[in-house]
């Protein structure tokens, strides 16, 4: 293997730091880049928002950690500012999706529009051929398909392919996931071996710009900063046959499958089974009404195949922690796919992604539009 010039997207965490150290040890010409995406102090002082956020992506602490790691392993390191694009491509869509009663996943948007788009452009502009990240996933060239493949990692518990379904062939051809064959404990061990200060740093789990995972407080604070407020999205709480049970405070307060905090009492447990944004109705019902056999996905990106030749048997994952379920996918026009599960699936939420797997190989994925 000859040395390549590789930009590593460094967040200051264990995974990406270890990637940088590994590639450096392999003799590559490594450039560390941190994307400054969000000012964690921006909403400080708004109700429900902490004064300062530590140990979070884009906090000063994380940039400090990434810089220390770069210094330890002896690579050039730079911070590139993409706050404006992040707000446009990730934060605003996130807010709009919630306001229209959907359950968005900003990490995929960030991967599609920032990490594997803008960062790749900057990386190539500054002379790198490839971008490496600390994602748990694998990328490989398939002679058979003449395509770049995205595959699940060795550590299935850390699998992040669900958030990477939007990667194009061009992006995959320039992407490295060096942790794809490793487990998290192995990564930490390697970080220790390289003497990285962040070896024991806890994993981050939450959405990077939403402190404490409290997205309602975030929506409130962000909208008030923008000089607006949560729109009045109050409406009726209804059953699936149209019976009005009461009022609700706003569609953004609910997600499909939610049981707690519905504010209505009946004999048997009730769940949100649908959110109708047009009529602002939140439809509630029994657990069994949460199950759907089909879903429609839009803005589909296919990876292992150029197009779907006909019905294809796959396993489909409908949220990050979902066990992929057997299903058949078929094309319904350009970048639109119909998914039919063998067994009905619980709480299919519009706004989330549906990602199609053939064993460990990601066939593709799209954004859930509706289910029935």
């Amino acid at each position, binding site marked *: 293997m000859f040395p390549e010039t590789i930009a590593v997207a460094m967040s200051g965490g264990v995974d990406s730091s270890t990637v940088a150290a590994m590639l450096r040890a392999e003799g590559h010409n490594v450039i560390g880049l941190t994307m*400054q995406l969000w*000012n964690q102090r921006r909403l400080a002082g708004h109700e429900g928002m902490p004064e300062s956020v530590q140990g979070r992506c884009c906090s000063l602490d994380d940039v400090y950690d990434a810089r220390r790691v770069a210094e330890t392993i002896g690579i050039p390191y*730079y911070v*590139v*500012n993409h706050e404006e694009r992040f707000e446009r491509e990730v934060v605003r869509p996130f807010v709009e999706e919630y306001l229209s009663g959907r359950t968005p996943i900003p990490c995929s948007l960030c991967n599609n529009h920032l990490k594997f788009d803008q960062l790749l452009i*900057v990386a*190539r*502009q500054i002379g790198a051929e490839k971008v490496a990240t600390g994602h748990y996933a694998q990328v490989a060239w398939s002679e058979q398909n003449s395509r770049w493949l995205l595959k699940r990692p060795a550590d299935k518990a850390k699998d992040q392919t669900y958030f990477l379904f939007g990667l194009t062939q061009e992006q995959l051809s320039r992407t490295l996931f060096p942790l794809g064959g490793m487990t998290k404990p192995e990564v930490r061990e390697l970080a220790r071996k390289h003497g990285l200060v962040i070896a024991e740093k806890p994993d981050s789990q939450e959405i990077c710009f939403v402190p404490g995972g409290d997205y309602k407080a975030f929506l409130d604070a962000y909208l008030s900063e923008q000089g607006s407020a949560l729109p009045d999205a109050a409406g009726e709480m209804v059953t699936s046959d149209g019976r009005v049970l009461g009022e609700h405070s706003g569609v953004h307060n609910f997600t499909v499958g939610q049981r707690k905090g519905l504010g209505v009492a009946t004999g048997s447990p009730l769940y949100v089974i649908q959110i109708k944004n047009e009529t602002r109705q939140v439809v509630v019902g029994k657990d069994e009404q949460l199950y759907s056999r089909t879903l429609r996905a839009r803005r589909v990106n296919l990876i292992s195949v150029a197009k779907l030749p006909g019905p294809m048997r796959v396993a489909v994952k409908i949220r990050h922690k979902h066990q992929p379920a057997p299903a058949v996918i078929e094309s319904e026009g350009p970048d639109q796919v119909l998914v039919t599960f063998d067994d009905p699936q619980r709480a299919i939420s519009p706004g989330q992604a549906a990602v199609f797997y053939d064993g460990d190989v990601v066939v593709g994925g799209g954004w859930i539009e509706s289910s029935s």
Partner: protein
Amino acid sequence: MQRVYFDNNATTPVLPEVFEAMRPYFGEHFGNASSIHHHGQETRAAVEHARESVAQLLGCRASEVVFTSGGTEADNLAIFGLAQPGDHVITSTIEHHAVLNGAKHLEEKGCEVTYVPVDGRGLVDPDDVRRALRPNTKLVTIMMANNETGVVQPVEEIGKVAAEADVHFHTDAVQAAGKIPIDVNQIGCDLLTISGHKLHAPQGVGTLYVRKGTRLEPMLYGGRHERSRRAGTENVPGIVGLGKAAELASVGLRRGDDTKMAAMRDRLERELLAIESSGVNGAAASSHPTRVPNTTNIYFDGIEGEALVIALDLKGLAVSTGAACSSGAIEPSHVLTAMGLRPEQARSSIRFSLGKQNTAAEVEFAIGLVPETVARLRELSPVYQRAATSR
């Protein structure tokens, strides 16, 4: 790898002569300049000698030189030492943040502040300053040379406006010192800031010139150092370094070093302007009033300045997108946008600033490197490619 440093408006390397002058004051000459004994007398003499050298560079008396920790402290001392709640202060939209954020804080403290604009060349109009005057105007603070564009402001005219109105005039001359002649009497200022590390002295030392009779409220309270205008034991090695650097700057200006510097800068600028869709931000170097001889700020349409700075750094050339203090900032340069540049044009701008240590060969190195780097960035820039195909 060959490394060329063209970011001298951010900071300059300490010249070997300056370092040699400082060296004894870290070791054998260690005394506290306020002490009665031999050791104190030794360092007191060194501090006062440095004060004379700085006074000579500025055309003032030694007693009017107050040593500070740097440019920011000197600017703050001038502003907060004079303006009281209820006073009106006039400044410009293109000041360094040491003045601009000071002015903003004054507003919070109950002062009124007028920010006069600049034209497309980055120049303040003295008539705007005159029109901004009010009965309660206490201070006019307008920089002598801008850190991002190098454009030299009409400080003498502004000084006259201030003098006619009997208003104090402060000028931040951090980017002018050592590059162009400074004479506080010609400028007619009461206060003037310089910073050591912008003229080949170390970081952490600066000067506020305070005209005799100007009553300043100190910011630091303590001993009677610096005639009670700035308490705190003197940074003797730093002050000695600043003195030596000032001495060398005076000699250099008499010798015509500024003309030589301008010739190098002009060659660099001419060659870089040969790059398609580029241009200089700020008054032309040959016009009058002019630019300091070491600075050129150039936009390259369709690129992100941040990426160009990184790409050049990886090839050994150090430049910047503007003020070092704003690195990583999301906002485009306040100086360039005040001059009327669109945000994306401001973001496509790069500052090249030369220093005494730079050579003609280094200029050639940059001339060889920048065009190909800009070309690669543009090749990979979706924005530039879109614009190119629509032309």
